């Protein structure tokens, strides 16, 4: 059985103008340690998919099964617990608490997790050993995103979900962040899902899922992923 399995996932939003099908019959299977890129233009349903995987919203029909547990059946309380213990979320705009230091921002996540890793060690591993006591305003964008990644990793989740993690960063910094995410998936054998509209990222992924108009357009495996530093965009 696959680590993460989506079976005919459909999400319909009710609007004043009637129903709107954001996702229809989406199915795929992902494995532990995979680095997956979900590609699609804006409005394709990426955010909806991310919301469903991240336990931030519920499906209209279909199943999502992670590590043998059917999360599409979860009630609100179970979803909160799922977000807390199984999901590490990396935001496009970092979403750090401005009034907490780098270390404290990581502690913000680990404090409520049972199997959390040491915040100091994780921050060191993302290269911020000297910035523990810095507030977000005293960090560059890339450094802030590293704190955000450290916050996600330190929870020791089952999946890392990343929403346009390089969207707010410059080219070089973006690459180092992707490198960091890639290494995390390989070294810690974690499933990392990156949602983006940047076509260039498909070359570095083990798996690329193309999404368009709420449907899976293509789902391909990349036998020889290119090292991120060799990719240009």
């Amino acid at each position, binding site marked *: 059985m696959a680590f993460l399995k989506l079976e005919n996932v459909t999400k319909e939003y009710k609007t004043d103008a009637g129903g709107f099908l954001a996702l229809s019959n989406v199915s795929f299977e992902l494995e532990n340690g995979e680095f997956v890129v979900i590609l699609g233009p804006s409005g394709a349903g990426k955010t909806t998919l991310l919301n469903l995987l991240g336990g931030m919203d519920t499906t209209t029909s279909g199943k999502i099964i992670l590590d043998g547990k059917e999360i599409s059946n979860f009630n609100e309380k179970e979803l909160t617990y*799922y977000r807390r213990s199984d999901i590490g979320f990396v935001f496009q705009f970092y979403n750090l608490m401005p009034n907490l230091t780098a270390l404290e921002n990581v502690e913000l996540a680990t404090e409520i997790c049972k199997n959390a890793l040491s915040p100091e060690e994780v921050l060191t591993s993302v290269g911020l050993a000297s910035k523990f006591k810095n507030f977000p305003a005293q960090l560059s964008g890339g450094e802030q995103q590293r704190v955000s990644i450290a916050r996600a990793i330190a929870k020791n989740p089952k999946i890392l979900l990343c929403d346009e993690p390089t969207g707010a960063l410059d080219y070089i910094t973006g690459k180092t962040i992707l490198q960091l995410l890639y290494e995390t998936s390989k070294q810690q054998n974690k499933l990392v899902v990156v949602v983006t509209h940047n076509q260039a990222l498909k070359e570095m992924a083990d798996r690329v899922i193309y999404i368009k108009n709420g449907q899976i357009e293509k789902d391909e495996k990349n036998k020889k992923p290119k090292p991120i530093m060799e990719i240009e965009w």
Partner: protein
Amino acid sequence: MKSRYFKSALRMFRKHLTRFLTLMAIIIVSVGFMSGLGEVKGKIDTNFNNYYISQHVSDLNIKSESAFLSFSPNAEKNKQSLKDKFGEENVMFAFCNDYEIDGNIYRVYMMDLENITVNKLTLVSGILPTVDDEILVAAGSKGLKSFDLRQEVTLENSQLNMLSGGTTFYVSGIVQSPMLMIKDKEPSFIEGKNIDYCIYLNRPKNAIITDAYIALPDRALFGAFSENYKATINQLKEELSSTLSVPKEQILSLYENYGIFSLHTYASKVGDIAIIFVIFFLLVTALVVFSTMTRLLDEERGQIACLKTLGFGNFKILSRYLLFIFAASIFGGAVGLPVGIFLTYFIYASFDTQYFMPNFISGVSFGYFGITLGIILCAALIVTFFTGLKMVKQKPARLLTPKAPKAGKKVILERIPFFWNRLSFKYKSCLRNVLLFKSRFFMTVVSLVGSTVLVLSGLGLLDNTIKLEAGAALIMLAVALIAFAGILSALVIYNLANINISERNREIATLMVLGYNNKEVCGYIYREIYIMSAVGALLGIPLAYWFMSFVFGFIDFGSVGGVNWFTWIIGPILMMLFTFLSTILLRKKIVKTDMNASLKSLE
């Protein structure tokens, strides 16, 4: 076609509906209280003035123990000279004396009851006497006893019986006299005793006259004990005593009428209290409106930037925010007016337990209402205009970039490692936030201090009034103050907490994505609100102490020492209770936060 700009303005209203309604409610309570309390003194003065005119209340009462009005060869001449001086219809002669019969003190009037021109009686029930053994009796009250209609009354007193021509009387009517306005005990002429009954005998041709009641021909002069009136009365007293040969002490004025003058004194106290609290309410309300509007504009930064880039003019952009506060003020004022009218009536009616109050003449006086609403409206429009102007005058490019989040930094408490290191990050974050956003902290704390002072003052006034057995009117006033200050405080706290939650929408969404459960997210936001409330409530205690010393001194009534010790605790506890209630009510707002807000860019 409906203007799209108008449509977008309407949506802005809808987005900030809670804030709009809270602001409106604050203005209702504030304007209602201010106009209601403010108008009480004016209402009493006006109604008493009308009563003074309609009953032709006497301004002077010459009590002649000497033979000035009877038994003297000059008596008729003296009486005629009074009539000549003041006018026939403004002078009334009567016999008035107090008798102790079977342990009760009777005030007995004998006069021409059919032709009372001065101090007109109001017939509550029954009819005027038609035969000599019929009498009128003053209506009973707390301090005064009375008889039933048609009751047989036997009064045995040789002097009285000689004058009245009998011992047995029948009550033909029950009356109310302007001379007996107070419902408490009224002192009699017999040393140390109060009047128990007051009866009126119809003796048109009574030979013995003890009293002359004089009403000033110029009825407009009175003006609820105006300064002019006081001077005239004093002057007349001098004049009468010198030309007419009556000792000055035997000329009584309304200032010596305990009932009427104490009503005036109480009304003035209410007026004094009103002025102080109206000013204080006004300050708190203005501050709340000010901080609400500045924070609203901050949140609207993105909208304003968008409108600017589209080429809308500064004033057009500002107009929607001016309309927002204008509408909240006008609607609030419209509802506040009847609230105020009711409050005026309520306090006026509470005077009724102590006084035979003239009928409440309904009708609206706009004085306090207009002034207080006007000030609030002006302050709100000016604040909104200038804060908004500062914002719209920026270059659109600058407005489009989100306002950089305030940089986190170490706060002073971190210099105490012993204390700081023991805190969990939740408290660290909370304390940093509280101390970092100084203006937010300041506004919240000052609003809370103001509310605490108001509630504590109400409670303190109540303590004193109860201890000093003051009139029901003052007690009611204290109760009204507590109620209105309490509601205002609750609204102020709710408003601030609501704004706090809106401003931190993104933080809340992020915490939810990180897996914080509802209780933890609420705790994260509420901790700060509780800390700010507690600081405000605690600082309110010394300030209330100082304020109350001032108030009690100003109204010349009660003292800070007369405030129960537990009142000082109840006040702040009440504030925390309001905070707690507000946070319970606002829980839904936090819990319903859309987690997608964490994915969006800063706006």
